[in-house]
């Protein structure tokens, strides 16, 4: 069998740019948490597929809209200046049309193929992310806390897609993802604090020069996560304890290396928690 050259297997340039505009990796993460929320309430594979398609469209649209709104700030950050919009590979008009279209299609798709409660949650995620979180990022350090709300809705959407109603298991999944995001983003914002500062973002890590407040926040939410993890089970508590330990390590020695450890541990925690939510 003839091997296909790597370059030939990659998506065409325009498609790759639109995938980057949609932040495909973040969409994948959103879909994992949505699927976990869904699996707690149902094993209807077709309904799951419809849920994931609709959620993927809304999530991709939200990410693309966010990049459209922040294109000028992205141009100032080393980490983001080569994104399709600041790099000029996609025009702002095309990005706006693309993101609005897939967001709308995704919301209507969720409403028709799943249920309107899930569609409403998807629409709430999009609007709160774009019209509340994104502007707040340049105004107040509370933005991370506010931004964690839309970030935590996908597992709840999974639950409502499966059951058609809001319920305790869905809220537990919501609480886990909500609290998990905070130490996770404290680590990211500490690693990239100079970049965020250049772009004028009011992240806590940017204003908190010695990192004490950032570390305190990471510890606070890790402790709260410990409590919510007890509702999932003792293995989740053990994983949460590891997250708390690394948060404290970060507080004791606020190095980039420890921030990366915190980031990695938080990722592992989320995977464990999602698996446990599904199998419990």
């Amino acid at each position, binding site marked *: 069998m003839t091997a296909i050259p790597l370059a030939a297997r990659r998506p065409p340039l325009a498609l790759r740019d639109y995938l980057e505009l949609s932040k495909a990796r973040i969409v994948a993460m959103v879909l994992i948490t949505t699927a976990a929320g869904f699996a707690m309430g149902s094993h209807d594979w077709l309904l799951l597929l419809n849920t994931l398609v609709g959620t993927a469209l809304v999530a991709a649209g939200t990410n693309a809209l966010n990049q459209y709104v922040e294109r000028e700030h992205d141009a100032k950050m080393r980490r983001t200046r080569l994104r399709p919009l600041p790099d000029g590979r996609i025009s702002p008009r095309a990005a706006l049309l693309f993101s609005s279209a897939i967001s709308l299609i995704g919301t209507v798709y969720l409403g028709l193929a799943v249920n309107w409660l899930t569609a409403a949650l998807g629409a709430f995620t999009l609007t709160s992310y774009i019209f509340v979180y994104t502007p707040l990022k340049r105004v107040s350090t509370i933005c991370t806390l506010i931004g964690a709300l839309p970030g935590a809705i996908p597992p709840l959407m999974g639950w409502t897609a499966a059951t058609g109603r809001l319920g305790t298991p869905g809220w537990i999944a919501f609480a886990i993802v909500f609290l998990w995001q905070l130490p996770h983003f404290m680590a990211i914002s500490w690693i990239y604090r*100079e970049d965020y500062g250049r772009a004028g973002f009011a992240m806590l890590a940017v204003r908190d020069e*010695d*990192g*004490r407040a950032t*570390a*305190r926040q990471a*510890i*606070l939410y*890790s*402790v*709260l996560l*410990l*409590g919510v*993890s*007890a*509702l*999932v*089970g*003792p293995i989740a*508590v*053990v994983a949460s*304890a590891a997250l*708390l330990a690394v*948060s*404290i390590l970060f*507080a*004791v*020695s*606020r*190095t*980039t*290396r420890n921030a990366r450890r915190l980031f990695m541990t938080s990722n592992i925690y989320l995977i464990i928690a999602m698996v446990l939510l599904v199998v*419990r």
Partner: protein
Amino acid sequence: MIDSKNTAARYVDETPVWLRRFTKLTAVWAVFLLFAGAQVTSTGSGLAVPDWPLSYGMFFPPMIGGIFYEHGHRIVAGVFGILTLIEAIWLRRAIGWALFGTTVVQALIGGLTVKLLLPKPVSISHAVVAEIAFCLAVSIAFFCSRGYRKLQSVERGAAPTGLTTALVAIVFLQIFAGAMVRHFGAALAIPDFPLSFGRIVPPVMTLPVTINFIHRCGALVVLAAVIATFVRLRRYEPRHPLRQLATLLLSLVALQIFLGAATIWTGRQPVIASMHVVTGASTLALSLVLALTARTVAWRARRQQPGALLASEVTA
């Protein structure tokens, strides 16, 4: 630009003597609390008081029967909560608030176990979070202690941070297995020791037998890990803190295995079973202190080599 802002060393210099003593008191009270909590399970008094946060609608119900253990545990826990709050305010460090927050969370999980009539996952979580709170209390006492200050004058060298950290993880997992044994009521699922039903491997593997056998195998793993650490640390001179801690840890593990055996031989006598829990927690705490000591010594060793620090810590 170097972004390393290591603040641990400042704990000692800034710690008033009474705060240092207070952190020790809190850690010792945590041991007492662990014993009181273990007694609730050992005596089967978990539901002796059916309501929470009050006990039979009162602050102080008659201390009779199982109420003595359950309500006594709540009182000891309440005092611990007050101690951790004072410590957090006095210490003014994130780790102090982490301890207080964990204690509050632990109280809520405790309340949940009562409200939900002792569901196993929540009860085991309650046991695991107790160990975390204890570890935090011990860590604070360690960072504020004279022993930590003395480490500043210890000869620097490459300390086995990976090995000692792995040891903490192994002991923690073994305690997790122990909590499973307690809350699944599997302590006497295998009635003999050191053999299991007269054999090395039990002939029948029901869930309680499996949990019990995993805990026994875990004891062997912990023992092997502690012996490996002890042998590795024999390279240090006899009075080196790392070597002293390793010797103490080995003795504690030997005591813990004996208490585990005695729990079976006495048909799960409550006080012995509770001592087994407390000694297990102390083993975890001591292995944590060993790991923190190794990290402190190694950290000092790194500080002596500015080149190494620059290579690993410079922001990109």
